[in-house]
């Protein structure tokens, strides 16, 4: 059964389309990364899935129900972001106790252990914490609620790199012990590559690709060598990025549609073939042609 199913989901804010006919589905017990540039529509999509925003058109199904105003979806999913709104009158420990009262699968022991491990002040209030500590606290709530659908929107905002690494470990361990569907949006795909199983890439409100992380690692390829040699190989292919590396040396990144024999032949003709990591692949698949270099390029022939 699919936990999430979207068909032509469009969300419009006034006239701007934040989501444009997005269709995809996510199965049970998967750890999925949602990536994309700023303003790609990640947060909007997650909020629609969590039932906070109402889709403008299309069909959204979470546990085969429409999430907007559905209590069962709310009881079985949790949405964690860096703007969580907690009442200013309650201390952090009191908030954890509220979580325990609301969520049936809540693991309070784990919550308290993590709370201590990350040195969160028990008497403090949520709004008094630093950005990174707020994120850490929110993350604890998200993990311990053990909801069949757990959504993290930029969970690592403000966390230092040690806490980020700890979070990835905690997420992976808890996911393995209690498999569930987890959707994480992140700008640090390179850091999360190892724990994610699948990646959904959005750009300008549209779905660019959805594939297992292993495939994404093979998805693009970098070729570098002499311009005239490269020319032969890249003709008719979709080139994502071209970079001048020398007088007539060039490095290009393009979709990997070459067979093993072709790659062998390329190497023989002096082309250097290297792989591109999943996170770089996502960047190249969504960055404007030419990159920021292009903006600074004042030569006549641009």
């Amino acid at each position: 059964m699919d936990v999430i199913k979207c068909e032509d989901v469009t969300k419009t804010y006034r006239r701007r389309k934040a989501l444009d006919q997005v269709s995809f589905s996510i199965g049970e017990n998967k750890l999925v990364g949602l990536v994309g540039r700023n303003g790609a529509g990640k947060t909007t999509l997650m909020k629609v899935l969590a039932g906070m925003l109402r889709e403008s058109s299309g069909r959204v199904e979470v546990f085969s129900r429409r999430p907007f105003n559905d209590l069962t979806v709310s009881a079985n999913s949790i949405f964690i972001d860096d703007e969580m709104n907690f009442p200013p009158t309650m201390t952090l420990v009191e908030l954890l106790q509220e979580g325990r009262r609301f969520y049936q699968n809540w693991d309070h022991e784990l919550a308290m252990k993590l709370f201590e491990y990350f040195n969160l002040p028990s008497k403090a209030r949520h709004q008094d914490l630093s950005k990174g500590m707020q994120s850490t606290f929110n993350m604890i709530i998200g993990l311990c609620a053990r909801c069949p659908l757990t959504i993290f929107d930029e969970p690592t905002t403000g966390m230092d790199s040690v806490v980020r690494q700890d979070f990835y470990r905690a997420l992976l361990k808890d996911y393995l012990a209690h498999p569930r569907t987890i959707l994480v949006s992140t700008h640090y795909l390179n850091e999360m590559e190892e724990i994610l199983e699948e990646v959904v890439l959005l750009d300008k409100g549209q779905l660019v690709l959805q594939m297992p992380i292993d495939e994404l690692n093979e998805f693009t390829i970098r070729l570098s060598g002499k311009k005239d040699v490269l020319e032969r190989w890249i003709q008719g292919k979709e080139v994502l990025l071209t970079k001048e590396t020398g007088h007539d040396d060039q490095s290009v990144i393009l979709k990997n549609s070459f067979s093993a024999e072709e790659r062998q032949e390329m190497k023989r003709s002096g082309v250097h073939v290297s792989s591109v990591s999943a996170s770089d692949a996502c960047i190249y698949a969504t960055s404007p042609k030419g990159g920021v270099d292009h903006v600074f390029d004042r030569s006549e022939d641009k």
Partner: protein
Amino acid sequence: MYLTEVKTSDIIGKQFRYKFKSYIGVFSSLVIIQLLGLLFSLSGSRFSSSSAVGYQVDVQYYTVDIVMIFTIFWGFMSAMLLTTKAYREDDFAFITNRFSSNLSTIAFLAVISLIGSLTAVLSGFLLKVVVYLVESEPLLSLNRGGIASTYSLEILGAFVVVFLFATLGYAAGMIIQLHRLFIVVLPAIFLGGSVWVATFDVPIDLFHFYFQEANFLLFLLKMVGTAGVLCAVAMLIANRLEVKR
């Protein structure tokens, strides 16, 4: 996959408890506003004087009418406050939908209205004690024999009025959440309506309809009925509101 099944009533109960902790601020404002009302009441609310040849009788009345009015205002403002984003979206940190969130807020409003009217009516005793201590003139008590049932009726009457205004504030707040412009439009409609009624002698007398009802049961019915309609309006609007956060 194992899905947790939840009962709406169960969630409403949990949210109700959660709201008591998170909206605790309304009680401190209640204490402050009622003490302020008492302070104003100390100067007496009505004064009458009659005189004939050789003597003059001055009567100073002490009532907690001002406390009551302040409490009604407090109910209205607190309810409106609860419709603002920061308060309305507190629920969305945990399990909720708009229906359960609204019902638990309305239940919360009912309970704080009851508490507010209870303390407002009881503040009458405090006022009498204070006046007794500070006033040197002879005191006459107009109390109705001090029967518990009269006070209960008084509290019940006060409660429905405070609750009506709380739901009015709640509905108005929700309308404002729908669009900012209503902050200006709603008072304009209200003032414009009153001017219209006054200048053209339109036979609509809301005050008479609600507050000069002689039959107590009918009065309760009108109050509760109107509050119910206002709640329904608020919920209809809230059902469409998105969580922007």
